[in-house]
């Protein structure tokens, strides 16, 4: 029998995977995909709670979040592309001019 706990556990695992992905990958595209994974982990949690609480709000939120995520993709890709054009490579660790 699947309970809400299972879904939350899964969503927590996904969230952590995403967070670890941000930390260990150096390609901004992949880092950004990891962040998307974290957002979707939140979505999963919303849906699960919505079902558990018998409250449709949570499912509506998912739509809002998907929209926001899509906008974020557009902005993020634009910046990454601009970066690529200027530097010809997209390793985040080499973007290191500003520090101290």
């Amino acid at each position: 029998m699947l309970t809400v706990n299972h879904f939350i556990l899964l969503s927590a695992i996904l969230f952590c995977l995403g967070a670890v992905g941000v930390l260990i990958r150096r390609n901004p595209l992949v880092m950004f995909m990891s962040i998307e994974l974290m957002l979707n982990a939140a979505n999963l949690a919303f849906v699960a709670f919505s079902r558990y609480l018998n409250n449709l709000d949570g499912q509506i939120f998912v739509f809002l979040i998907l929209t926001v995520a899509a906008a974020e993709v557009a902005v993020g890709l634009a910046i990454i592309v601009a970066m690529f054009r200027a530097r010809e490579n997209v390793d985040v660790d080499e973007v290191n001019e500003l520090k101290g």
Partner: protein
Amino acid sequence: MPILVPDINLRIIAPALIVTVTAIVVLLGELVTPAERKRWLGYLSIAGLVVAAFAAFSLWGANASGFSGMVVADNFGLFLTLTIALSAALSILLSIPFIHAHEIDQGEYYVLLLASVAGMIVMATATDLIVIFLGLELLSLPLYILAAFQREDTRSLEAGIKYFLLGAFSSAFFLYGIALVFGATGTTNLAKIAASLAQSAGSPMLSIGVGLLMVGFAFKVALVPFHWWTPDVYDGAPTTVTAFMSVAVKAAAFGAFFRTFQFALPALALDWRAVAAVLAVLTMTLGNVAALLQSNVKRMLAYSSIAHAGYILIALVAMSANGLSSALFYLLAYTVTNLGAFGAVIALSDGARERLEIKDFAGAAREHPLVALALTICLLSLAGFPPFAGFVGKFLIFGAAVETGWAWLAVIGVLNSLVSVYFYLRPVVQMYMSEPAEGWSGIRVAPLVALALLIAVISVIALGVFPAPAIALAAGGLIR
């Protein structure tokens, strides 16, 4: 079963709506404006902000709530709305000559800035976590682009990409926090969360959720240890963008921060107040100490903005009516002071060649005595030196902390502002007590920059010498 009619009340979101409409008009206007008339788009944007400010004034005292309790037009939110509109208008005044000199004068600049303002207003007036999240994203996304707006400059791009990656990362935390709070309380409405928590005890899930919310806000207002992006992004972004986000983002994010924690989560105050107190100490100390050795004014002001976030957090820890009003006053004071400081830095730049190293300021007092005086006043105000706005702000915040039994926090705050004097005075010393550096001749201050600077400096002095009206407005901003 009756059909629920959506509770739509456009009047209470009028300021945000007006700003949004202005953004769209400017976007369309960009298509038909010839290159040499781009500055008119800036004037149009300012006009929109002024109208939005009037709308906010007309709502003063309305205390209306709408959209099923998701948005509210209370004096607290309206005070922040006015502060945000003021900061945006002053920033645009600074921007018009600046982006022209740097050859990035595209109408999109103003559109993005206005979109961000709309997000800020939404965030400051939201009473639902999901709406706060929407406002947060709406304010952040345009800022990511604005930070990278000097596309030819790798530093600007670096600022953009760092801000974007770390910002999205923190947004994910924030969103997950909302999900967990939703799961624990069954609602995302702030008032209902408070009601629900008043009856039931907390749970580990709730604690994690609250912690993640705190992290999300802490990132936006740049609290240690979530501040790492701040110096790099402020350093790399175009100076006018840095000026804008250093003040307006703080106003919006602190507004939502206060609303969420002081009004939705008082039941857990015992827990989060201690955490916030520690964060405040770390933030003030790191901000001020790290600023001591900076040689670049933008980076110095970045660290200083971190320190100021720490001072404002003290007001949240106090968790009282006076704390709230002191934070509002402080945000207003910080807005005009910091914009004045950035305005003076921009005024001293030589066309597209900016003077950002502190040593470049040598002798500025002889060449531009009034700009040097303005910068001196603003820096003294930032340092909390009487009788300027920053002094009254600090006094109110420390007073609120003392009143509620957090005197030790106030003492650390006083000690910190003592340390801060040293780095704030370094540019002053350079300006007044050094022989002029090369290349001062022939620099003229753009009239719009001078106007912005004048407004800022008069406000800094007025808020310091005659703060009573602003304090009264801020105190009227209390929400239930």
